[in-house]
């Protein structure tokens, strides 16, 4: 589904990603871990198509197609979803209106008719139940005055509504208390299928107790320095990152 080959990316003159290789197949969950400043969020932004970054070498293929010429919105139309670490506030635009616009713009790009209002409403109710969201939530301005937990829950709610093929969860666990973490993880697990894939970006092993990855990759100084299964996450939790940094330096 996603194939990243020798990806190098800069912001300004600074090289952040220095040769990333990663392959994600349908049905898989990949976790990307790493210390601060290792390039985790850059990687998610580059996959999603943020223009601040310049790809200097390598490429990203999604379902066999090179993404480099596609804008962020076109990538979204193909089924790539990014759950933001810091979701943006848009005052005056309700959660409902935003999701409705997003769904219908994606449908338009795919040559489909807008989703009938009754079906959309039904889906919203269903997904709200899944994430234990109150209906008053829908008429609030997008992320405006939301608590950290509400923002993250709203991200996963959007993911549930947009039903992407590839979802990248960028530090979805930060700012969540233990109950919210459980609810959000539950939601993500229920959305998981054999057809879609998830990349979880996190600092901590904690989230991976709930969303269990098939693969764990450690990012350090813009490279994946180690890959393994979920036991690698546990190892990191107990030993920290330093041993990997030393290993990478050799």
């Amino acid at each position, binding site marked *: 589904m996603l194939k990243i080959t020798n990806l190098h990316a800069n912001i300004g003159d600074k090289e952040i990603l220095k040769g990333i290789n990663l392959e994600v197949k349908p049905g898989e969950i990949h976790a990307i871990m790493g210390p601060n400043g290792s390039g985790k969020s850059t990687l998610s932004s580059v996959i999603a*198509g943020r223009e601040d970054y310049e790809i200097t070498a390598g490429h990203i293929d999604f379902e066999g197609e090179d993404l480099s010429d596609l804008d962020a*919105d076109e990538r*979204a139309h193909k089924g790539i979803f990014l759950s*933001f670490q810091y979701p943006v506030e848009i*005052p*005056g635009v309700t959660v409902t209106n935003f999701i409705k616009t997003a769904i219908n713009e994606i449908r338009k790009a795919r040559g489909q008719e807008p989703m009938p209002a009754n079906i959309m409403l039904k889906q919203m109710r269903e997904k709200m139940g899944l994430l234990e969201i109150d209906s008053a939530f829908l008429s609030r301005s997008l992320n405006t005055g939301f608590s950290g937990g509400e923002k993250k829950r709203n991200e996963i709610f959007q993911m549930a509504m947009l039903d992407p093929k590839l979802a990248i969860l960028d530090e979805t666990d930060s700012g969540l208390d233990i109950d919210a973490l459980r609810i959000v993880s539950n939601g993500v697990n229920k959305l998981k299928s054999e057809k879609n894939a998830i990349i979880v970006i996190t600092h901590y092993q904690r989230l991976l107790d709930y969303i269990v990855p098939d693969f764990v990759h450690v990012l350090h100084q813009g490279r994946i320095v180690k890959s393994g299964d979920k036991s690698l996450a546990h190892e990191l939790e107990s030993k920290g990152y330093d041993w990997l940094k030393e290993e990478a330096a050799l």
Partner: protein
Amino acid sequence: MKTEESYLDEVTASEYKYGFYTDIESDKVPPGLNEDVIRIISAKKGEPQWMTDWRLDAYKQFLKMTEPEWANVHYTKPDLQAISFYSAPKRKKELESLDEVDPELLKTFAKLGISLDEQKRLSGVAMDVVVDSISVKTTFREKLGEMGIIFCSISDAIKDYPELVKKYLGTVVPRSDNFYAALNSAVFTDGSFCYIPKGVRCPMELSTYFRINEAGTGQFERTLLIADEGSYVSYLEGCTAPMRDENQLHAAVVELVALDDAEIKYSTVQNWYPGDKNGKGGVFNFVTKRGICERNAKISWTQVETGSAVTWKYPSCILKGENSVGEFYSVAVTNNYQQADTGTKMIHLGKNTKSTIISKGICAGKSNGSYRGLVKIGPRAENARNFSQCDSLLMGSSCGSHTFPYIETQNKSAKVEHEATTSKIGEDQIFYCKQRGIGEEEAIALIVNGYCKDVLNQLPMEFAVEAQKLLAISLEGSVG
């Protein structure tokens, strides 16, 4: 349920389908302004002597005044001696087909959803079919007539309802009020008059499109609207289709009179030609709009301003009667090289008077937008209250936004609140929308409409839908 699209179709189709004014007088006075010119104007319009005298008096006041310079706008002052103050509405040169029309204009029409025929009509292309408008107008007029509502041109009102005009004209905006108001008083040739009798609730939105004898908006428009005791009226002015005009200077005066327990809702969508992308051309819009509220009366101004090269406009309320209410809801958009200095004045004179000001400025390109507002609490205005919120939204880094709030209170019991914010449409917001599949232009429209929601909610439904589209079009290509 109707979709927004169908509302828009309906609205844009209904606005102009009443055909157009073709019966045009041919004469024109030579350029320049003097007493004789004013006498000629008054005579051409067949006005009574009192009206001629009224104009001449305004002109005398005008001569003592100078063009104001305090507004935060810069332009070359129009040469009044070069303007012909009485010319019958000019027939623009008719074009053979739409191919001859500025393609930019046609794109805008298409985005507003204006039909081909309307596009022709608006851009001055010759048309074969003119919809028969007489019956529609007659039905409309009969319905209003049964209720005693008067809605006609100001010229007709001067002839047909001289007592009402004499009693109220110039009472809210005196002839000596300001340079442009005095000029307007001396030379106005066009405008609307409306009277709602006691206790009558006007059953439809009154729009200038329905007005009898309308021949396009004049250069010096004069509007007088009187809501008698306990009556209600909602009045719509302007339209979203870009209005081109050969006259650069527009100086209108609007006077609203809300007698005891009356309510007037006055909504404007203004889209005068703003000049091209380099700031050439465009209309100067110097408007004086003011209303007076008697006891328990309410006046609510709502405006969406996207046009004009230079705008100078402060719809105001004099809250004279006790418990009266004034409201001002405004969205002012400037793009490219546009300049706008706009806001309101809330003059609290009576006890327990209340006013609300919600102003949303949006600046893009190299434009400059200013909010200028006065809240004045008089010595007898016990328990007066005001709430003002002035927000600015900046797009890009070459535009300017300014806020000039003035507060004068002469009564200790007054409560005046002022809130102001400045924000910028961030790349973060746009990226967030794009990541969800929403393209850049759609994203800007969504963000801007969200920002303006409090104001757009005040507009009548059909107008609001149009205004939303207009905002998006006005700001196209201004980010990125």
